[in-house]
């Protein structure tokens, strides 16, 4: 890629991220609540509950401009890679990283793709439920990615982030958002304890995230 094209790309991504953050604020007044962690430029994996396509926009709107530039959301290639336009939006405008759930060849291995992003010093936004939660449960069981990443790169901080109200802003199957106030609660980092097995860790991380919900009784 030529230097000029590279520049245009960064400009496009900057413009997109600034305007999306402004829009997220205008619609939802999104506000971070740092409860157990602080904003930092340290390398991190932000893991959050997932109910809507707008989730990672809201989350990255809570990060500083510099952090946002090096933080990539992990999105499903099955959905975002379906057409050239979607791929353009996901990869070129939102600088997200696409992974497939059904991968065949080694270069599609989601863990290797995510590790290669981490190895550039960048941070990730991950939705460990694996899909948007359309059930009545507040949070689905976690898939293994979070554990595998943490075992492979133990220095990266895992920050649980509870995204409030997005399921009401943009419920399943709707495309017009209702402007409701949203908060994102950033909790205490979790880490795999020595000797902790996969399921135990995933359940612990799951509970740590769910415990951040500031108004649990109303999520129905």
């Amino acid at each position, binding site marked *: 890629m030529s230097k000029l094209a590279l520049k245009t790309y960064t400009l496009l991504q900057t413009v997109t991220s600034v305007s999306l953050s402004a829009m997220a604020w205008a619609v939802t*007044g999104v506000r971070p609540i740092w409860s157990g962690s602080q904003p930092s430029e340290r390398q991190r994996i932000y893991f959050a509950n997932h109910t809507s396509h707008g989730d990672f926009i809201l989350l990255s709107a809570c990060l500083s401009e510099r952090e946002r530039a090096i933080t990539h959301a992990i999105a499903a290639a099955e959905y975002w890679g379906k057409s050239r336009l979607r791929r353009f939006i996901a990869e070129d405008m939102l600088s997200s990283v696409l992974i497939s759930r059904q991968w065949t060849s080694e270069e599609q291995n989601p863990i290797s793709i995510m590790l290669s992003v981490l190895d550039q010093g960048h941070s990730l936004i991950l939705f460990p439920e694996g899909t948007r939660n359309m059930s009545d449960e507040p949070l689905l069981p976690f898939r293994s990615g979070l554990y595998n990443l943490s075992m492979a790169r133990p220095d990266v901080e895992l920050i649980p982030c509870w995204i409030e*109200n997005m399921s009401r802003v943009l419920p399943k199957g709707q495309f017009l958002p209702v*402007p*409701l*106030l949203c908060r994102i609660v950033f909790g205490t980092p979790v880490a795999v304890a020595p000797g902790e097995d996969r399921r135990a860790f995933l359940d612990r991380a799951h509970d740590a995230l769910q415990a951040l919900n500031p*108004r649990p009784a109303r999520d129905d």
Partner: protein
Amino acid sequence: MRHEISILIIGLFVVLTTASIVAATLSARAPKPLSVTLINLTQRINAWWVMVALMTVAFFFGRYGMTILFALISFAALREFVTLTHSRRSDHWVLLGMFGIIIPFQYWLVWTAWYGLFVIFIPVYCFLLMPAITALHGDTERFLERIAAQQWAVMISVYCVSHVPALLTLDVPGFQGRNLLLIAFLIIVVQGSDVLQYIFGKLFGKHRFSPTVSPSKTWEGLIGGLVASSLLGALLSFITPFTPLQASAVAFIACTMGFLGGLVASAIKRDQGVKDWGHLIEGHGGMLDRTDSLVFAAPIFFHIVRYFWTV
């Protein structure tokens, strides 16, 4: 009207400057670290500077400025109200309609001065059609609670708030072209009463008015605030069609309504388990925390002026 507006702006500037100096002096003398009350006081005064500046700008744009400003206030207030109350997935279209249809249409009615529909659009048409849409969706879980909350949300945040710019549509003989001053009078008196109740409460407050609803409201604050704001009303009679006596009576009624609005808002917040409606205005809370008194005062003030002073 220029003359009166200049006096108001200078007056507000003097009051805010005094407030900032007092707060700075108190902070300088107080032991460190500063108490929560003192930090909050400074935040509140700073926010007042911003709010007064925004109101002044909107004032200079006249009818446009006022209509747009209050439509935006309705938007922020409605968002806070709906966020706080219970809703379900099946309410999505009703909620969208509240933001996308009811707010624009109600303010369009204000803009075109269509009084007949303005007063009944929400309390009659929306009142009947919103629950009908909800019922058509077939989801009966906590039905009455949901439709009641939606009704309250639009009545408080849209209907009541829209009565402020609607003051511009009133035809008061001998007062033509000066209706903006009615808005200035209402806002200064009602918001002034909030501030005066706060000051009297902080200085002399002993006997709680309603410990179960709002522990911060005291009889001393209420009486001091109401008397002082009635006097403020009389003092401001030169910008109104009222005599000084009438102005103080109107101010008294508006501020009493304002007090009750604050009380009702506190009861709702307590019921929902929150302290503030939101965080839009530093030191004050949300939009509704700042406008709860205006919400209750505006329709009554509007109808008093309409009944007694228009043809």
